[in-house]
């Protein structure tokens, strides 16, 4: 029997949702301060309006639903999925006010793409967009990559027992430190240390590539945020092609790979336990899947002699592949070149890489390496059971931070999430085909949206049908939250309508 949610449930959800919205409102004042520094007055007012409206609504919600009760699992999950929709809506306000997005739907698409670290964009005339709005586009990737709830847990929540439920709701089920709030703060510390180092490295390369120092470091910071959080936005229309620099490409590859690793692994590396990199099931699986998908991509590119030299072929193929596999979405080719010049086999390699993703508890989307590793281990165990004498007991072990014995519930969970992703990839591509796009292109764009990658073969543009824009928004949202909190929200709404 379905039980109708109580007023208490709604108040609890509303109160913590309000807190998250207040947190988001405060973040909006960072670009406003930056706008004052660089004397961009209209953008400063865009963020004053956006920040004030967000704070007002968040404040009203916390007052209206004031409670001292802690969140239960259902409330935590529903709250997180609503928080991401609220972030999309409020984050779109300053973008829309800039006049660089054709409609509020386009601005919302951009906002969700940013928070979910996808990188698909509908911006108009990006090359004349203000520094302030560009900073916001990249900042929302930094916030979304760590997790909107992580922000609230790190800075606005003190000693909340329900924190873990929100943390899990945001597709992070691993605690690095015993306390979830300390875990959130550790994630921020890692990210900020890398932010400083990455910005310096990219800024110096930018200056040596002929950019002026302010622009070089501004671009460095923006590109770092997009690379480490495996987002994919860049400050210029041409994406990474704009820089025409091998050094820039190499540094972004390193940052993308760092972003695709588990924060727990970062913790172990920081603690000096570097052997964990070579033993961990996720890094091993990542290594093998990169090799396999790279092989497919390069064979494909070689078939049609897409690039004249082997080194050029490798450089283009490897960059797009790493960008796709880590879920970043940086491109050194034009979107249309994927369709016009890349053979189908190479596209299949890239689509497979995008569908697989990086590590759990990282900033990437998609199925993720731990699940692929677990499914492979289960397959290995089943093969052993068939091949060994019937009386033998087969125990399968894998190493993820510590040695873990494979259990059925782990396999079940990995298979369920993998299946959900596959259904989402297919559903989005069916939607694309309904609007007349060819199969492979629809699958490419849908996988890119659902796996929070951001590589585009040209379907994503302002002229695409609104229904398709909404479809991709839903894919980005569900893909980023890894389904459970979205399913809980659907169940919650169903119970509110049909429950007793």
């Amino acid at each position, binding site marked *: 029997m379905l039980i109708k949610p109580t007023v208490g449930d709604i108040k609890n959800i509303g109160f913590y949702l309000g807190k998250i919205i207040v947190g988001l409102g405060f973040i909006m004042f960072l670009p406003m301060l930056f706008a004052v520094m660089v004397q961009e007055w209209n953008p400063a*007012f865009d963020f*004053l309006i956006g920040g004030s409206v967000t704070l007002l609504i968040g*404040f009203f919600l916390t007052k209206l639903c004031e409670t001292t009760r802690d969140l239960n699992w259902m409330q935590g999950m529903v709250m997180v999925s609503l928080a991401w929709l609220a972030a999309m809506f409020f984050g779109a306000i300053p973008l829309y006010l800039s006049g660089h997005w054709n409609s509020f739907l386009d601005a919302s698409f951009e906002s969700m793409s940013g928070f979910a670290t996808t990188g698909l964009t509908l911006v108009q005339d990006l090359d*004349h967009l203000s520094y302030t709005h560009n900073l916001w586009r990249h900042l929302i990737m930094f916030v979304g990559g760590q997790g909107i709830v992580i922000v609230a847990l790190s800075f606005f929540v003190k000693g909340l027992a329900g924190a873990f439920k929100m943390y899990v709701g945001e597709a992070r089920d691993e605690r690095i430190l015993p306390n979830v709030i300390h875990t959130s703060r550790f994630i921020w510390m890692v990210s900020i240390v890398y932010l400083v180092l990455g910005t310096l490295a990219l800024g110096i390369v930018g200056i040596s590539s002929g950019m002026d120092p302010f*622009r070089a470091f501004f671009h460095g910071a923006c590109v770092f945020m997009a690379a480490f959080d495996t987002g994919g936005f860049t400050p*210029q229309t*041409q994406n990474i092609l704009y820089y025409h620099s091998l050094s820039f490409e190499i540094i972004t590859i390193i940052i993308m790979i760092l972003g695709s690793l588990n924060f727990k692994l970062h913790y172990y590396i920081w603690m000096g336990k570097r052997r964990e990199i070579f033993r961990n099931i996720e890094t091993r699986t990542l290594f093998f899947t990169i090799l396999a998908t790279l092989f497919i991509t390069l064979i494909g590119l070689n078939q049609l002699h897409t690039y004249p030299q082997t080194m050029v*072929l490798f450089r*283009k193929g490897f960059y797009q592949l790493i960008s796709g596999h880590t879920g970043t979405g940086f491109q050194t080719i034009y979107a*249309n070149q994927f369709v016009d010049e890349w053979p189908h086999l190479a596209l299949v390699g890239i689509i497979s890489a995008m569908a697989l993703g990086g590590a759990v508890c990282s900033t990437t989307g998609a199925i993720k390496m731990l699940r692929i590793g677990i499914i492979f281990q289960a397959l290995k165990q089943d093969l052993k059971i068939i091949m060994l004498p019937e009386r033998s007991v087969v125990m399968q072990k894998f190493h993820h931070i510590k040695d873990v014995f494979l259990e059925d519930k782990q396999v079940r969970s990995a298979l369920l999430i993998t299946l959900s992703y596959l259904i989402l990839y297919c559903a989005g591509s069916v939607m694309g085909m309904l609007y007349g796009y060819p199969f492979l292109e629809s699958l490419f764009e849908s996988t890119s949206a659902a796996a929070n990658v951001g590589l585009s073969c040209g379907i994503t543009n302002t002229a695409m049908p609104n229904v398709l824009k909404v479809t991709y928004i839903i894919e980005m949202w569900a893909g980023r939250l890894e389904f459970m909190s979205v399913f809980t929200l659907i169940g919650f709404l169903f119970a509110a309508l049909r429950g007793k």
Partner: protein
Amino acid sequence: MRKNAYNFSKTICFILIAAVYIFLGEICCAAQSILSTELIDNAKKYDGQVVDFEGEVIGDVMSRGGHVWLNLNDGRNVVSVWAEGETARDIQFAGSYKRRGDWLLVRGIFHRACEEHGGDLDIHAQTVSVHEHGKSIPEIPDPVKQRTGIMSALILFVVWGLSRLVDKKRKHR
């Protein structure tokens, strides 16, 4: 005699008309630059050919040794141009939020996947000329935005202040 004079003037007229036609044709051809979307979508067709391209310089003029990278936006997409370093001297503005960049006309060899530049799609310029210089675009303050921003901030402060007052009274009781 009269007939000869008539034929002569007819020939002169024909030559003049032909000359004007060819001259106008040249002008039209020179002005007919290719669009970025046409280049990108049909890169194989134009690969290795001399093309005329025009667009606004955006972002940065990036010096690399004796050459520069120019990124030209023709309003549809951006194409990179590899030009002689001296070109940079004529460029006054590169487009950004507060600047409209110089509008350049470029004639050069188009590369679908340039071997010299890691497979990038680019144009190696033979000639570059500034068609129109750009300018600084002063930011015109939007009064509606200003009023709305100030009003919303004021409302926020009043609501926040009132709520603090109510909270204090509640605690006092």
